[in-house]
């Protein structure tokens, strides 16, 4: 009897074992929808991460841009300060208005009785054009000057031509003609009052003054 019970028990256990062994089969069937959800979840999370990344990127970009803007503003401010620092207000008795001379705009020089731009002076004009591009609000007047030799009237014509050829060179470098006026002072405004070649060379010039900033 005891042996019979034991056998039954074993069988039972076996059956139970079989039953239990059949259980995972049932679970597998149940688990199929749950995997799709997980993929969905994963995708959602992926999207979330991407969104976060995009947002972060946008924030960073914005920060970079803000920083750039601030840097630009600082640079503009610095440039403005630099310009302001370079200016010397010039008011001449008997001549209407105040103009500004700037150390940023360099004077160019000419040969005797000539008005063509010499190669070295062309380089100076390129630098002056860069300054005018950096400060798009500047309006300038180019003054044409001569040395004391020769006739007053002829020198007025020559000074006019020096101012005009300087203006045309700046226009060729992309500066708008609306920003440039010219005036000839002939031999009336020497920089150096001397009566020698050194003084004359200094006085034959096109000089820049700022009339609006």
């Amino acid at each position: 009897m005891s042996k019979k019970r034991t056998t039954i028990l074993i069988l039972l256990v076996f059956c139970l074992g079989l039953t239990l062994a059949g259980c995972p089969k049932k679970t597998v069937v149940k688990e199929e929808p749950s995997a799709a959800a997980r993929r969905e979840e994963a995708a959602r999370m992926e999207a979330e991460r991407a969104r976060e990344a995009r947002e972060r990127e946008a924030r960073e970009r914005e920060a970079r841009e803000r920083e750039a803007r601030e840097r630009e503003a600082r640079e503009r401010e610095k440039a403005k300060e630099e310009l302001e620092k370079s200016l010397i207000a010039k008011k001449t008795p008997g001549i209407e208005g105040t103009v500004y001379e700037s150390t940023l705009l360099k004077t160019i020089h000419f040969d005797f009785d000539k008005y063509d731009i010499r190669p070295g002076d062309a380089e100076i004009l390129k630098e002056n054009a860069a300054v005018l591009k950096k400060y798009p609000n500047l309006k300038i007047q180019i003054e044409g000057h001569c040395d004391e030799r020769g006739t007053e009237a002829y020198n007025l014509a020559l000074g006019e031509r020096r101012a005009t050829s300087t203006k045309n060179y700046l226009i060729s470098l992309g500066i708008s003609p609306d920003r440039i006026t010219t005036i000839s002072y002939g031999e009336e405004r020497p920089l150096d009052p001397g009566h020698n070649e050194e003084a004359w060379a200094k006085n034959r010039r096109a000089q820049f003054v700022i009339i609006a900033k």
Partner: protein
Amino acid sequence: MLRSFLPIITLFIILFLLIIPAKARVYLDINAPSFVQLPIVLPKWKSLGKTPPSLSAKVYEILSNDLLLSGFFRVVDYSKLPPLLREKEGIPDPLLISEWIHSGGEMLMVGDVSLEPNTLQVILRYHLVDLIEQKRLVGKQIEGHVQNLRYLVHRISDEVIFQLTGEHGMNTTKLAYVMRQGESKEIFIADFDGANVKQVTKNQSINLSPAWSPDGKKIIFTSYLKRNPDLYVMELHKEGTHRLSFQPGLNASPSWSPDGKKLAIMLSREGKSEIAIIDSNGTNPRFLTKGHGNESSPSWSPDGQWIAFCSDRSGSPQIYVMDTNGSNLRRLTYEGNYNTSPSWSPKGNRIAFCGRVGGEFHIFTIEADGSGLRKLTSNSGHNESPCWSPDGRYIAFSSTRTGSSKIYIMNANGFNQRPLTPSKGGESSPTWSPRF
């Protein structure tokens, strides 16, 4: 400025003794390239009655200087006369011509002055005598307010010059010119003899190229008042100036047409100086040149048909002539590589200009057909901006021969160069008035 000078003058001339009738004999051909100065004996003038002796001394000084400045005379001053004649003064009565024959001159001029104390009118009487032909040429009397003494004496000098040269003198003319005043340049006026220097602009600006109107009433000039070289007109008997031509760029170097109705000027077009004609009220600009070069210094011919000007179209500044439409262009100067500032003689035959020789600038004249080039200055320094007297017998110009630039006057043949005023310098751009 002239207000106190011309209109209030009450002047009349009485011919009380005229030996030579209307047409005067010409003793001096002053248009010849060279001539010998005529020696004129000038005894002391006399103050009649209670007239202060200083008045006749003043008259003598002005008269003697006028005759000297004309360049036509060698004045034999009373102090240079033989002892007996040295003491004589006034108009001798009777006037014994034989007494004066050995006085060292070919002409004799004697005179006296009397002042009416209540009206302050002066009467100036004079006689002019030809000592070679031993005859009186003229005896005249001129009367006016003592305030205008200089002008009255200038009228007498003018008459003497007319009697002996066939043309009136320039003693009643004036010159306007530019004078540097620190950083600015102002316009001044002086009499032909350098007296009565007056500043007529006081705007502290750069004022340039004055041009006296043919009627003597206006001066046109360029000023930078509005930060552009604009043309302004100043009425000499009124206060103030007004702006006449103000195109952007040059409005400069005006020259009046002989009828006073138009101006030839330097006017900018596309940043280049051109020659243009405008009406004398500043309107209606017409360009005569078309961008061939830098054009400057227009000067109208006395017949109104031509304009001389300077252009660098050939590569260097030279003198050209064109008609008033800009046609019939011809080049006048070929010598030298820097000839500027033409000025057409009122006589029409010659054009004065400034040319460079070596490193110096000198005054030249040339016939209107380009022949007969003559150099008139030879002193060191720069000589510039020639302009003619209204009779074409003198040229005023600026010169740096003694340092700072001063206005000089010379005879049209280059003789008798002398500074206009005793100023320290800084003078330029003379323009001559008509006779007043």
